[in-house]
C-alpha cells in the first residue's frame, strides 16, 4: 500500500518516485551524519552485515539521562539513509527511557510511509540505537567495576 505513496509534481524529478516527500527530504539532507569523537561517545552501535552492504554505525552522547548528541553513518540504500536520519531526529534530546521505546513504526510514521520492501531498513536504525544504548550500559558497568 505504502508503495503507491508518491511525490507527484515535485520539481526536479519524475512524478512517480515510490518515496514520500519527507523520506526524500531526509535522503537529500540527512540529519546528524558523521561520527562523535571518542571523548563525546557514551555509546556506539554497529548493526548490519558490512559484507552485504547493509550496515549502520551510530554514536550517542548522553548526559542527564538524555541523548544530547547523536550521529550516524550508513553504507546504505535510500531507505537506510532516510530512516537512520529520521531516527536520529526522533532520538535527539530524548530521555534514555523514551529512546528505548522508539520503534520502527515511529520512524515510518515520521517519514509518512515507506515502500514495503524497504521496511527492514527502518529496523536497522532502531536496532543500531538500541545497540548504542546497550553499549552505554556496558561501558557504565565497566567503569563501575574498574577501580
Amino acid at each position, binding site marked *: 500500500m505504502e*508503495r503507491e505513496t508518491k511525490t507527484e509534481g515535485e520539481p*526536479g*524529478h*519524475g512524478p512517480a*518516485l*515510490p*518515496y514520500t516527500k519527507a523520506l*526524500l527530504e531526509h*535522503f*537529500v539532507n*540527512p540529519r546528524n*551524519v*558523521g561520527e562523535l569523537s571518542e571523548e563525546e561517545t557514551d555509546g556506539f552501535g554497529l548493526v548490519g552485515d*558490512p*559484507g*552485504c*552492504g547493509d*550496515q*549502520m*554505525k551510530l554514536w550517542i552522547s548522553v548526559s542527564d539521562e538524555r541523548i544530547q548528541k547523536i550521529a*550516524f*553513518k*550508513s*553504507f*546504505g*540504500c*535510500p531507505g*537506510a*539513509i532516510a530512516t537512520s536520519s529520521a531516527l536520529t531526529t526522533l532520538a535527539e534530546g530524548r530521555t534514555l527511557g523514551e529512546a528505548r521505546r522508539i520503534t520502527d513504526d515511529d520512524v515510518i510514521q515520521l517519514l509518512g510511509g515507506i*515502500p*514495503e*520492501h*524497504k521496511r527492514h531498513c527502518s529496523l536497522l536504525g532502531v536496532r543500531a540505537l538500541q545497540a548504542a544504548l546497550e553499549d552505554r550500559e556496558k561501558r557504565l558497568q565497566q567503569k563501575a567495576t574498574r577501580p
Partner: protein
Amino acid sequence: MIYLDHNATTPLHPQVLEAMATCLREHWGNPSSPHSLGNQARLVMQRARERIAESLGCGPSEVVFCSSGTEADNLALRGVARALRARGDHIVTTAIEHHAVLHTCDALEEEGFRITRVPVDPQGVVDIEALHRSLTDQTILISVMHANNETGVLQPVEEIAGMAARRGIPFHVDAVQTAGRLPFRLRDLGAGLVSLSGHKLYGPRGAAALIVREGTPLQPILTGGSHERGLRAGTENLAGLVGLAKAVELAVQDAAQESRRLEGLRDHLEERLVSAIPGIRLNGAQARRVPNTSNVTFPGVDGESIILGLDLAGICVSTGSACSTGEPEPSHVLREMGLSRRDAQGSLRLSLGRSTRQEDLDLTVQALADTVARLRRITSV
C-alpha cells in the same frame, strides 16, 4: 529528462508508432481467418517477416515471432532440450547470462538435465577453454549471450559457433542486446538459434523473435493453433510484429553509424568519469564491448542511492541487475567477474542511446560527482 538506461528499454521510434497505429486501425483481421480481412493481415505479417529476414540476413520462414526476449530464450532452451532429450541431457551456458536463460536452465535442471555454467574472466569474458572442455557427447545445446546486458562485454560467439558446428551441437545466441545495435549479419554469428526483442531497439514491447535456422531441432513451448509453422501457438500480435519489423529495419540501417557515434560518446563519458570521481573502476572496459554501455563501480557507496540521487536531478540510470520486488539484488554478473558483494552493490550501468547527446553526459558526470561525494560523507565503510 536524461535517459541513460537504454539497455533496460528504449522509447518507440516515431515511425514504429506510426506503423503500429496504421496496422491497429486498418489491418486488424486475424491472420488465420479465411476471408479478405484475414488474408490482408496474413500478407502484412508475411511482409513483416520478410523485412526482418532481409535486415538480419536469414530466411523469412526462419523468423519465429514471440512475445518477449524472455520467451524467445525459453523457447530456444526448453524447445531444444525437449527436441533432443533422447540424444543427451547436457546443456552448456555461461554464468553471466540473463535470468531468462539462467533461470530457465535452473528449471531444466529440476527436470533432470545437467547444466554447465561456464565462468568468466575478470573482464567478464567467458572462459572459452573451460567451455570447450565441458562439451561431452551428451551435450545437446550451447547457449551464450552475444553481449552482456550489464557490462556490454561481447562474448566470442563466432568461435563458440565453430566449436558447436564441428560437434553438431545446436548453438543459441541471446542477441537481445546486440540485434539492431551492432552491424552484424545473422549468418556471421553462426548460431542455429538467435533471440532478439523489440523494446531494446526502439520497437514495441510484446514483440520479439527467435530466429531458428533451418534444420535446428525445436519443440514448441506454447501449443495450440499451428501459427509460426507450429513452433509458437497463439493469435499473432500483428501490430507488434509490424512495429518490430519497422524497428529492426530502422535499427539495422543505422547500426554502423550509430554505434560509432555512441562509442565516441561512451569513451568521452568514461574519461570524464575517471577524472571527475576518484577511486571508481570501469568494469569490463578492457574487453570488446557494445559501444553504448558503461559499467562503473563506486566503492563504498550504494548503487540504489546513487540512482535516486541522479533521479532527483532528472537523470535515469540503473544498476542493470535484476530488481525483483523492488529490492535490487547484487549483480550475479559482477560477482562472477570477481567483485565483492559490496562493490557489486556500488555499481551502476550507464547505457546510451539514440537520444544521447554529449551535453547530457557532461551533466550526468557532474551530477554523479556531486551525488557520490555526498554519499561518501555518509558512508560507514
